[in-house]
């Protein structure tokens, strides 16, 4: 074909060059020992592979006790949020070449949720906060015979927050959440936003009252950690600001 960029040539190049990577993982298994410990693993990897591929290679070839959650392996299911080099990311959406593989790559569980084993945290408080904002369409009156109409513009209004995959990367990157586990956290607010700004929904007042709580949106200190952490590129902080504004103006 005519159009052949350098990037395409690089993507198609055969004979990949493997590099030696050190992966430094914060291991924790209370069945074995009460304290966490950092363990280094060395392995040969193609830098274009994912961090998840490196974890799999360790588990499958070196240490079967290494424990983490994973499923889809391409950034859709939200299972494998973890702290990689100090930043929350999905292991399956992070390529080794993008996290400075010449130095040890550090991997630990996301913060603010109880670590149960290695990279696995207790997700129940996270999902409880989600459930508390009534994350479902609330309507009054009889259902229409056909679909509810919604203009493309009205649909676009809340498009960003429909992308959430509930991976907890945002909530567990939030310093307020680290210090106060009762704070709803960014993900719950994102999912409230998704309905508050849906033109079909009639439950915005109820949700706003829930988020007007002491542990609601006003705890947000606008540090933007959540927006940086979101693997789906959701402008989380902006969404929280829009919910705050809606609380003040009662317009949504």
């Amino acid at each position, binding site marked *: *074909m*005519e*159009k*052949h*960029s350098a990037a*395409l040539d*690089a*993507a*198609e*190049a*055969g004979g990949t060059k493997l590099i030696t990577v050190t992966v430094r993982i914060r291991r924790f*298994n209370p*069945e*074995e020992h009460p304290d966490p410990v950092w363990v280094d693993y060395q392995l040969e990897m193609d830098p*274009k592979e994912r961090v998840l591929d490196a974890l799999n290679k360790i*588990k*499958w*070839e070196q*240490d*079967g*006790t290494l*424990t*983490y959650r*994973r*499923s*889809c*392996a*391409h*950034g*859709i*299911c*939200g*299972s494998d949020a973890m702290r990689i080099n100090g930043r929350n990311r999905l292991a399956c959406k992070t*390529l080794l070449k993008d996290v400075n593989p010449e130095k040890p790559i550090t991997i630990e569980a996301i913060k603010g949720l109880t670590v*149960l*084993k290695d990279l696995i945290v207790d*997700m129940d408080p996270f999902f409880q906060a*989600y*459930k508390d904002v*009534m*994350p*479902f*369409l609330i309507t009054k009156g009889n259902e*229409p015979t*056909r*679909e*509810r*109409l*919604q*203009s*493309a513009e009205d*649909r676009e209004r*809340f498009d960003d927050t*429909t*992308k*959430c*995959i509930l991976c907890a990367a945002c909530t567990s990157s939030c310093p307020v959440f680290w210090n106060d586990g009762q704070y709803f956290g960014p993900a719950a607010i994102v999912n409230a936003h998704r*309905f508050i700004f*849906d033109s079909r*929904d009639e439950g915005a007042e109820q949700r706003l009252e829930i988020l007007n709580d002491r542990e609601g949106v006003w705890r947000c200190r606008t540090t933007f950690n959540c927006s940086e952490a979101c693997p789906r590129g959701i402008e989380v902080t902006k969404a929280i600001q829009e919910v705050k504004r809606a609380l003040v103006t009662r317009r949504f």
Partner: protein
Amino acid sequence: MQIHQYDTVIVGAGGAGMRAAIESTQRSRTAVLTKLYPTRSHTGAAQGGMCAALANVEEDNWEWHTFDTVKGGDYLVDQDAAEIMCKEAIDAVLDLEKMGLPFSRTEQGRIDQRRFGGHSRNHGEAPVRRSCYAADRTGHMILQTLFQNCVKHGVEFFNEFYVLDLLINEGRTAGVVAYELATGEIHVFQAKAVVFASGGTGKMFKVSSNAHTLTGDGQAVAYRRGLPLEDMEFFQFHPTGIWRMGILLTEGARGEGGILRNKDGERFMERYAPVMKDLASRDVCSRAIYTEIREGRGCGPDGDHVYLDLTHLPPEQLDAKLPDITEFARTYLGIEPYTDPIPIQPTAHYAMGGIPTNVEGEVLRNNTDVVPGLYAAGEVACVSVHGANRLGTNSLLDINVFGRRAGLAAAGFADANDFVPLPENPEQLVQNLVDSLRESTGTESVAQIRKELQESMDANAMVYRTGATLKQAVEDIAALKERYKNVSIQDKGFRYNTDLLEAIELGNLLDLAEVLAVSALAREESRGGHYREDFPTRDDVKFMQHTMAYQEVAADGSTSIRLDYKPVVTTRYQPMERKY
């Protein structure tokens, strides 16, 4: 060990399981047991849409959709079931919209629709806009919407509970046995009705669009309890997976105007499917791609892939309609799909076969009789609405239509019947399985056996098959099963033992791969997703019937596969030659 009692137990929390749970929770005391947290299921990876003849953007009707489904399945579809699915498709989409699903919209504010492979106007005249979608995130939106409605209805989930056995007593469903991942504890769930909705088996192949977790758990459990598996030789290879990685790039990309090209830049599908071109059915496109590669027209230094070309489409269209797949190309290949074609190859995608059911979702124990109280829906099941090749979007439709039906039927059964007693020592089989793996001192590695299985399946049982390659697969699997007996794990603990979990999953994959290969070897014809180079034509006289595979256990405990066949239900459409 703990014992629980529920009217209805649903196994799996993907689209089919949650759709069933929304119905059954409102009518019976329901527990959903799921290996993963609910929104982690692979329903969320579906992209392009869900077809229904809403006729929002052009003339359409459910009968055309039924015809396309039957033709797409190469006449192995049970036509009564396809008719139900295509009729109920319209309400299934409208129900999702009413539940809150944020569909992409037309200028009039209606649900927008786009073209998809194999979906046509008036019995094959031209492509039709039938797929209802939300950008290229339709599966994600369905999964989220169903989970949101499960929250609304207070569905009770048991997260990270892995179901490892089905209990049948006095010929009726008595419950299931599950392993709790967090603690290693075994739980017996006594239930009047059980719905299996545990998904597919795509991890038996190496290049696969499937999640790591798709290991055919439900199929394997049912099979080991003596229930048949239907049409397992029919496996779909999606034409456009990211080269070598297998990550799905939606057919919606071609629905939006994307084109498959070989190394000469030629739009080669014109030669294989003059009318539907790039929107021919998936089996046709995947074979065409491999033919191009085999005949030396593949791309790249090794000529082992082709291109999905979106470069002629306006960037605004890609941003609005295909934001996720263009991002995948950027993330995983480092290319810019506005200007670069995307290297792709066929990827293992979907099991057409599975646990046989009737249109109410009731599981069949032979060609005619059901197991009272047992239901299955979604990819784990075979109704059969997909026949020998599933049309794009019809899986999202299947999970909604038959998930709902199974949920209603299960709750109805639970309402009308009492519990059957649990068998003696109900946990025994699972306890033995878990103990033997945890205590094994064998020398074989799970990862190594799984790798060899996947490599053999890719080499021998993929898009092109012959008697010789399938025999090779059968031999390879038999050898791997022997080695599996000597497998051991490193993690001996009880807390989140995913090492143990992977070992059990591999056992499931081995059994199901064997069923696939043996069923495929016996089917000496080519139909839909099953293509035999040594039998390149469809043989309606001998093989217009469903394969039913049973596990036979000999007195010494050794197992073998017995194949039987079941007639296809034909109502409106007599088999014709399949052209696109």
